[in-house]
């Protein structure tokens, strides 16, 4: 289809406006992270640091226990991702292959669990975890994250299972492969990329999560990265802009890298889960 030149120009102008809106706040964060204090105090801040420095990064690590917080985040996110995928994959398989009462109930739960405000969930969870002495501990947080990641994991994984033709499994059975053998050597390899993408997505959501961590983790040594980041913002509002920006930038990098790897697969997975969902 030919598009008139004027319309094309309009389209490019609109696209440019979108690019500016999406990119500039992030560029400003990066620019602030590399600015020396003198430039940060300047009344006429510039886009590009005139005298870029890494001092903010060093200061950020000195001001707050970032490394320990990152390790806590890593433990919580890896634990949640691995456990969620381990227990969700078999159930997603059943949801994709059989349509019984159980499948319908599970699908209903996936939808309903998305619409409940976290407050209604966190108060009873807090009371239950307190009784189990798991409040203020990373394992307790992992338990919460696993359940929190499950709806999405089930949704995605059952979509991926549906994409594996059932005829392949039948052919393997005809050839004499047992049930377990069929699952392990036919289904699992075809499912692997989807499982990895789901696990990575669960990792990113747990790495980024703030609300549950804020409520459950009180001891500073146990807090995760997002909670520790909020400590940079003092009671007065803003403390040190440079170290704040530097720490925020570092905390984003793992999510950005992982997400760039899986974004396409996640999008297709969400739509696949919606087909005959």
């Amino acid at each position, binding site marked *: 289809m030919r598009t008139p030149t004027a319309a094309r120009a309009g389209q490019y102008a609109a696209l440019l406006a979108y690019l500016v809106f999406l990119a500039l706040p992030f560029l400003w964060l990066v620019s602030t992270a590399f600015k020396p204090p003198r430039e940060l105090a300047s009344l006429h801040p510039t886009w590009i640091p005139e005298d870029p420095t890494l001092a903010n990064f060093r200061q950020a690590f000195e001001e707050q226990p970032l490394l320990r917080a990152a390790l806590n985040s890593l433990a919580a996110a890896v634990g949640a991702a691995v456990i969620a995928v381990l227990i969700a994959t078999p159930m997603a398989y059943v949801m994709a292959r059989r349509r019984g009462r159980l499948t319908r109930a599970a699908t209903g739960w996936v939808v309903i669990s998305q619409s409940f405000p976290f407050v209604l969930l966190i108060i009873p969870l807090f009371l239950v975890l307190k009784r189990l002495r798991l409040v203020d501990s990373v394992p307790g947080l992992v338990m919460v994250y696993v359940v929190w990641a499950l709806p999405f994991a089930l949704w995605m994984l059952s979509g991926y299972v549906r994409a594996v033709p059932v005829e392949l499994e039948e052919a393997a059975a005809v050839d004499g492969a047992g049930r377990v053998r069929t699952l392990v050597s036919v289904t699992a390899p075809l499912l692997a990329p989807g499982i990895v993408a789901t696990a990575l997505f669960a990792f990113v959501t747990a790495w980024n999560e703030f609300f549950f961590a804020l409520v459950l983790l009180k001891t500073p040594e146990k807090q995760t990265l997002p909670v520790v*980041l909020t400590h940079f913002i003092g009671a007065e509002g803003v403390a040190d802009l440079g170290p704040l920006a530097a720490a925020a930038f570092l905390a984003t990098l793992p999510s950005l890298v992982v997400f760039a790897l899986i974004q396409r697969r996640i999008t297709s997975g969400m739509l696949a889960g919606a087909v005959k969902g």
Partner: protein
Amino acid sequence: MSGATEVNGARRRAPGTGRPPGGHGAWFLVLPALIPILVLSVGPLLYGILLAFTDAQSGRTQPTRWIGALNFRDLARDTLFWESFRIGLVWAVAVTAAQFLLALGLALLLDQDLRLRWLARALAIVPWAMPEVVVGIMWRLVYNPDAGILNETLRDLGLGDGRDWLSGLATALPAVIVVGIWAGMPQTTVTLLAGLQNTPRELHEAAAVDGAGAWRRFRAVTWPALRPVALAVTALNLIWNFNAFALVYVLTSGGPGGRTRLPMLFAYEEAFRYGQFGYAAAMGCVMVAVISILLAVFLVGRLRGGEDA
């Protein structure tokens, strides 16, 4: 008789050999996920609803008592809560509507054969992947009255001295809404774009040959195909936005003077600052009820509208 049942059973089993495990096998596969779901999701949700009818408080020595609907009666008179509720609705509707319109525009652009498409797609990942806390911190830097780039840009353009966006009574909520739009737009865009790419190209070309303008082509060809995706993503966005917490917690903590205190922030403070678990649970129940009604009205209205069109 017994022979007949055997034959029946055999017949029923025969085509099932290649099928996935049923009966006990299925339960075995489901249990590892089902138990955590029941213990840590379904159970707590029901428990949370029950708590709304008690006087549960944090750190109290007396046993918790049933108080019937007293929490809800108190809540009905709690003007602060309803003000927060009103703010929450303004926030959720404004953010969801703007997210949808902007995302639709961007998705339509990305569906065209434009240069720099890859850049927009790459940039769309940034807000999606970022921790909400970092999004909040980042926009605090943008809105910062002295060192922020927004005021500096306004000064450069000669549009006045700028202001303290997040502390101004009039500007705080709009400023926070812009951040909400920024954070949620990419996900909506990517979903709508995937929906767009499923619309039949041939229909588009046929309509163009018949002389239909861009707007008519959108109304007659694109929108009908896109509608199911658009409805689903808008409904989900509305729920998520109404339940938003981290962004606003970092940006304003609900200030100034409660102007950006979303219902989730209100309930969080009630539960974990003042320890009023029962009362906060009642708030959660009211939030679920209202958002369910809103969604039902929205979806029924949309579906009807579709039949008329």
